[in-house]
């Protein structure tokens, strides 16, 4: 080969190098994040060859970045990573935060001649801890763990212990120390009782520290044939290697094929402590774990669609819906009936409150409720002034029947509590101290018994009735005890009621008095009722026959009583026995007109009769004579024999003179020993004179008085009527008197006619 050829070769090589370099610099760079589950430098040292391998095989520059979980999450969120390798729990969390293309491959870990794509948790303590032998000894112990999002460093153990019966998150103090190495150191240093780490850590650390296993004690160790590590829990798939969605699909394919192409003997695999990558494992078990423990991303209650719930629990849902409907329905019904009840109650309360009759509720002897009428009855202003007081507070000390109000009420109330209904009359005292009669009804309120039972007290104002009764009683006693006979008849005059006086005056027994006419004047009969009907009353006096005794004179007044429509419905009659009164009246009449000694008319009656006789004489055209008679020598008889003898003489003389005169003539004693007579129908003066002579003779006859025969005579003067002059009775008597004086003057014992003095 010539030097020129070498030169050309060199140039060609240089150009090729340059081109290659240019191409290389144009290659895209991928960032491969690896979770630092152990100290950063260890991870970087281990995985750097893998990054290089991928760079070579996939034809892209792969840059390794070792991150803790928080940084990795941030980097993923910022799309700063293209691929990452982390533990399954952390992967689930990232996957829930953003959509991922999924797992590209699952790591297969190497351990000596074995390999496994499973991992688990190790629970260990320092070898010398005798008190910690099994999982049952763990509660209360302090625990060191790399972090919550470590599958083999926390979650696997937590589930195992949950199955053993306790939750370390509640019953233990767990310190999170970020890496597995620190957990081991922490336990060995005695800072924590127990350590949680993932499988393979102890074996890896034992490479640098061969007697590590003599210083630790693994708890709950599982005997799993073929599994290369000590393990305390069940197993889960190893770490996933994940591609982010933004990575070119072609690149993903190339990376994936490079990953699967890794042979166990490759430097990248040996350095990373793996034997390669297997197709993606099923991470369902990890999801189940996270769900069971409720750790992120399953720390939220799952969002379950209603329709799912409905499908799953159709029968339950139906039952619940029916129950809820029933409940709702019954609640509505209850509310409605409650409303109705309330309205009804209000109406009832209103009814009781406005009930015109006073009503009160009594409990334990005091008012608990009163209505308006009761307040009004007692003349108070509000219910408040009544409630809380007893009935006795509104009663006078004693009731009209003489019982003490309080005692009487106690008796009543105790009987009512026994279930009886009590009714009585009661006097209450109002606020203005006036008294009011009430008809009181006490009744137990149904359904409640015992001392605390409620008693309904209903009052009815009977004051007016009581007063009417009093008036009636008074009227009845007047009727019964009156001395006047009182009777009441129907509209036809038949007696329907009569008092005792009536029976006494009529002399009729009760049976005869009732249903008959009362005593009536004979001439008018029951016509008196017609008069009473027409004029409103009738009154009169009449003589009436007594059943057994003397006839009586009755003074009767009958009044008509009108009914509602103005028609006469009854007659009320009243009469009194005036027989005695009539007798008295007659006696008085006699005393006024007759001389008590001789029984002859006196001067008054004489004048009266003279008037009548003069009128009659004038009418008949006949004559009459007025005769004046004076006894002679009467005074000596009187003086000699006493007044009684004088009176006897006068009686005898008067009787003799009376006997001489005719019946129709009048003889009167004018006083002392002076008499006057009217002789009517004088036909002839001669017959008159013979009459006068007989008079004189009769007087002159001796009279036997006081055992003595005495003799008197009469001087008589007379005059006639009519005369020429018109004279009155007194003038006539004066003329006769003058004539008598003439006779006296002429020697007594003679009769002289008046003659007018000659002028």
């Amino acid at each position: 080969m010539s030097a020129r050829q070498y030169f050309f070769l060199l140039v060609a090589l240089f150009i090729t190098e340059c081109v290659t370099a240019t191409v290389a610099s144009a290659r895209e760079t991928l960032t491969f994040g690896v979770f630092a589950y152990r100290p950063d430098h260890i991870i970087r040292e281990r995985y750097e060859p893998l990054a290089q391998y991928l760079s070579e095989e996939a034809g892209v520059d792969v840059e390794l970045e070792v991150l803790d979980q928080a940084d990795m999450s941030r980097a993923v969120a910022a799309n700063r990573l293209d691929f990452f390798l982390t533990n399954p729990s952390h992967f689930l969390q990232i996957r829930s935060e953003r959509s991922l293309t999924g797992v590209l491959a699952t790591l297969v870990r190497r351990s000596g001649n074995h390999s496994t794509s499973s991992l688990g948790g190790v629970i260990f303590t320092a070898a010398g801890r005798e008190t910690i032998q099994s999982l049952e000894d763990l509660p209360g112990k302090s625990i060191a763990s790399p972090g919550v999002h470590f599958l083999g460093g926390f979650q696997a153990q937590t589930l195992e212990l949950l199955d053993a019966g306790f939750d370390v998150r509640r019953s233990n103090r767990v310190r999170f120390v970020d890496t597995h190495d620190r957990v081991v150191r922490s336990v060995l240093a005695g800072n924590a009782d127990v350590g949680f780490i993932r499988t393979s850590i102890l074996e890896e650390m034992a490479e640098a520290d061969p007697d590590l296993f003599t210083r630790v004690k693994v708890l709950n160790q599982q005997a799993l044939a073929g599994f290369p590590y000590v393990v305390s829990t069940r197993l889960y798939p190893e770490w996933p290697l994940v591609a982010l969605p933004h990575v070119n699909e072609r690149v993903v394919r190339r990376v994936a094929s490079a990953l699967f192409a890794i042979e166990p003997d490759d430097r990248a695999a040996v350095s990373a402590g793996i034997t390669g990558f297997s197709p993606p494992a099923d991470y369902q078990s990890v999801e189940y774990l996270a769900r069971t423990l409720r750790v992120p991303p399953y720390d939220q209650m799952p969002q379950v669609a209603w329709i799912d719930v409905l499908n799953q629990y159709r029968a339950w849902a139906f039952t619940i819906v029916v129950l809820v409907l029933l409940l709702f329905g019954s609640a509505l019904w209850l509310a409605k009936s409650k409303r109705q009840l309330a309205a009804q109650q209000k109406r009832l309360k209103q009814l009781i409150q406005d009930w015109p009759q006073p009503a009160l509720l009594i409990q334990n002897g005091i008012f608990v409720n009163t209505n308006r009428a009761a307040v009004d009855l007692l003349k108070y202003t509000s219910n408040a002034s009544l409630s809380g007081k007893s009935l006795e507070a509104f009663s006078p000390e004693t009731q009209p029947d003489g019982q003490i109000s309080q005692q009487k009420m106690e008796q009543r109330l105790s009987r009512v509590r026994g279930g009886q209904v009590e009714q009585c009359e009661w006097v209450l005292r109002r606020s203005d101290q006036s008294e009011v009669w009430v008809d009181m009804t006490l009744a137990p309120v149904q359904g409640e018994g015992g001392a605390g039972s409620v008693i309904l007290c209903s009052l009815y104002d009977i004051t007016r009735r009581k007063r009417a009764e009093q008036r009636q009683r008074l009227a009845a006693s007047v009727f019964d005890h009156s001395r006047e006979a009182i009777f009441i008849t129907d509209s036809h005059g038949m007696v329907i009621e009569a008092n005792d006086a009536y029976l006494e005056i009529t002399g009729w027994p009760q049976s005869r008095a009732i249903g008959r006419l009362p005593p009536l004047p004979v001439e008018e009969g029951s016509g008196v009722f017609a008069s009473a009907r027409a004029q409103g009353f009738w009154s009169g006096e009449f003589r009436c026959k007594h059943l057994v005794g003397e006839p009586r004179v009755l003074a009767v007044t009958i009044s008509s009583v009108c009914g509602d429509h103005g028609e006469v419905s009854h007659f009320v009659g009243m009469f009194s026995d005036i027989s005695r009164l009539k007798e008295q009246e007659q006696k008085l009449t006699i005393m006024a007109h007759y001389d008590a000694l001789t029984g002859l008319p006196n001067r008054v009656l004489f004048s009266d009769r003279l008037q009548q006789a003069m009128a009659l004489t004038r009418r008949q055209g006949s004559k009459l004579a007025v005769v004046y008679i004076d006894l002679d020598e009467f005074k000596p008889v009187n003086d000699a024999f006493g007044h009684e003898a004088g009176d006897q003489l006068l009686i005898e003389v008067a009787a003799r003179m009376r006997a001489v005169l005719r019946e129709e003539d009048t003889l009167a004693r004018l006083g002392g020993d002076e008499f006057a007579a009217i002789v009517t129908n004088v036909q002839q003066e001669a017959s008159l004179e013979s009459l006068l002579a007989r008079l004189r003779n009769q007087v002159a006859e001796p009279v036997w008085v006081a055992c003595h025969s005495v003799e008197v005579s009469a001087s008589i003067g007379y005059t006639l009527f009519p005369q020429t002059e018109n004279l009155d009775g007194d003038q006539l008597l004066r003329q006769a008197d003058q004539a008598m004086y003439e006779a006296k003057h002429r020697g007594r014992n003679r009769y002289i006619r008046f003659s007018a003095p000659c002028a």
Partner: protein
Amino acid sequence: MQRRDFLALSIASGFAVAGVTGCSQQQPLAFGIHPWIGYEPLYLARDFGWLPESVTLKSGTSSKDSVDRLLSGELDGAALTLDETIRVLSRGRELVVVAVADVSAGADMLVVRPSITGLADLRGQRIAVEVNGVSGILLLKILEVAGLARDDIVTVDLPVSQHPQAWARGDVDAAVCYEPTASALQRAGVVRLFDSSDMPETIFDVLVVTRATADTNPEAVRDLVGAHFAGLQHLVRSQHDAVYRVASRQGVDPVDVRNALATVMLPDLSANQRYLAAFGRVETVARALFPPDAQREHDQQPAPVKTPV
């Protein structure tokens, strides 16, 4: 369905409070079980404490133990294949299928010497098989597919657990077996020629209880089924964990467990209800397996799959 059952259960539990003493006096349900990936959920449930005291697991080495002890009355229930169930039924013990644990989708297989390349080559070969087990059924199916008669092969009746030794001694040319023995044999150099994935939804592994237990102790049956589904959920959801636990219990490598899991279908609750429905797949298969004269005794329907989820 599930929810209604939950409701019914909740209500029933409310009523059951009064009868608690009566329940507690009952003997625990003795349930026979042997190593098989489909039955692992019950072991997981036991290990995690999800199996109530009303059920006790009685481990045996193979299904034969369970069958014998069921017939002797020692067990109240067992995990069996469907054909074993019918075999027990036909021998007079009335059983009720309460759950389908798994459906074989390649778990049962015919492994052969590598020199045997086709089913036709089986003629005259010595084949290890557990005749009175599911393997017997599979063998019949294989012969049917191969167009061979029973006499065309030499049957070596051996429990599956003894197949590796028989192979190591060179006593057999082929074996009808299942996991995890199948994996062990394969590591010893045999190859898989035919498996149950060639006859899908035919080999059922079921949980059965006696009729008497179903009638007298339904609570325990419910607990058993509930524990199975709880374990199944862990097996499926937390496979990373479960494989190690199954591996350490069976004493095999976790990889073998993963392989075994790939050869079975593990029906969940709703799939179970589908399988166990009247005229469902289980009943259809059972009728095909069952001699017609004995069908009256075969009663599948009451499977009380009532599980708190």
